[in-house]
């Protein structure tokens, strides 16, 4: 499997664990520690998939999703997003809708702790889908 994956999470141990799992599958992994760094890396590295944590300092995952809705990010919008967080999916969706008034538009949602098998499956599905688009 090939593809470049950006992982954004404030917990370095999670970054390491995810990176180990994905690199074992042949993906190239780049990481960022918060939303601001994540957006910069998205611009610089143009990954095939972004794995995004929601609760982070400086700029959280909600803010990143919201920022990506802006016209300036139009060319990055087709990059699939996989949310990887300890927040329950329904709670996140409710919060995002309350704050922005629109639905959280992401490709997949995985709650931590993540089983490596499920993570690998989701990542490959998302990347396949992107390539076929």
């Amino acid at each position, binding site marked *: 499997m090939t593809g470049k994956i950006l992982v954004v999470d404030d*917990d370095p*141990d*999670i970054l*390491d*664990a*995810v990176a*180990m*799992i994905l690199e*074992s599958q042949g993906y190239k992994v780049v990481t960022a520690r918060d939303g601001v760094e994540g957006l910069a890396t998205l611009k610089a590295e143009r990954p095939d998939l972004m794995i995004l944590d929601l*609760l982070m300092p400086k700029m959280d995952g909600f803010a990143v999703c919201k920022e990506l809705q802006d016209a300036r990010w139009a060319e990055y919008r087709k990059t699939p997003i996989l949310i990887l967080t*300890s*927040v*329950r999916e*329904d*709670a996140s969706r*409710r919060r995002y809708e309350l704050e922005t008034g629109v639905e959280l538009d992401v490709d997949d949602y995985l709650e*931590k*702790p*993540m*089983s*490596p*098998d499920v993570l690998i499956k989701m990542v490959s599905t998302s990347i396949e889908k992107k390539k076929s688009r």
Partner: protein
Amino acid sequence: MATLKNNSRKLPIRPETERTPEEETLVMRLDMFIKMRWVAILGVVLVTIVARYAFNIVFPTLPVYIVCVFIALYNLLLTTQLRELNKSPADQIIPSARRQGYFHIIFDMLALTVLLHFTGGMENPFVYLFVFHIVMASLGLKYREVYLLCTVAVVMVASLYGLEAAGIVPHVNLEGFVLPTRYQETSRIAAQLVVLAVLLYGTAYMSTAIVGEMRRRRREVVLRSQELAEKINELESAFGEIGKLKEERDKLLYFIGVAAHDLKAPLTAIQGFLWVMIGGFTGEITEKQKNLLERSAARINELMRLISDLLDIPRIESGQIVEEMKEISLHQVIFHSIEVQRNLAETKGLVLKVEISKELPRIMGSAPRLQQVLNNLVYNAIRYTPKGTITVNAQEREADVLFEVIDTGIGIPPEDMSRLFQDFFRGSNVESKGTGLGLSISRRIIEAHGGRIWAESPCHGTSCGSKFSFTLPKMSKPRKS
């Protein structure tokens, strides 16, 4: 919320030193009497001039002007008296104002009688102006005083007419207006007096009745508005309380949110590493190592579940669940929770049967929370059923929807039944690995929806091990928690 808190200013309730509307109007009326008196003086002078020169009615005008000067003088006196009244203490105002009003009217009636004497006595039709005095009296005085004043007026006029007729007091004839002999016609005098008396008493009766009614209504309005002001104050402080409680609740929920995240973050990282190792992503491990790592992962899972469960309780009890409620489809709730459990049932060789009516009403509820309840009940059923069938029922009833999860498992010992839904209760006949919070959380969720949850074991007339049932009301009446 903040605006509510700052908004705790009291509505103006009358300070003790301020006058009641009743006192205010009495004083205002005395002032009005004084002004009207000036107008009356002017009127007398005008009528005299018009009668004398335009209609050529002959009578001595000098005494009329003298009486006018006299009225002006006592009017000035009354003006200063009214000023004094304004300075007197509040509880004195009503009695002194009444007394003053009474004397105003006595003076005026006396002045009118004197004027009548100098302008023809019974020949003068202005005698009916006494009606004015009675109306004015009924505005501020007691009923009895008003009737007394009527009598005073009738007596004064009767005496005037009588004394003139008898020749004790000289009579002035309005030359060119009335025949000079009429003032001694007894029947005329009597008729005029009767008309005057009827007019005055009749006016007194009607105007005191009207004024009395108005006064009663005004008192009622004052009373009601005071009650209203008190109610509004109560309401405002209640709103303040609610605001404070909501603020405290929000703080608690924020705290729980942060605590949940911070407690789970390190466990999540550990779990991530464990799974990376178990999955062989860091190289081969021995079976023994793998076994220990898996057991560690299981314990971490257990701890994570406990944290979730513990933090769920205050979330539900603080009423957060009510905010999550919206119109939901029960079919979807059931479908989602069954899907999660189907694999587990199949691996245990159990049959998972779902019997729900095609038409289920939509209800107000929190879909994820209701899924949590069904998940929990179905998971328990699977866990405590070695072989057989798990049946999930849902049917609409008159006022609610009834859900049942029936298993053919080991059942529940009678001594456990009463404590089943309590916190940290674990069955005495099972080697449980749960947190002991699943059913107590389910109970809280159902009760927050306004429903009821209960268990039966063994169920009547069937082979079932245990049956868990709960209801959800059709109308949205979430219980306040």
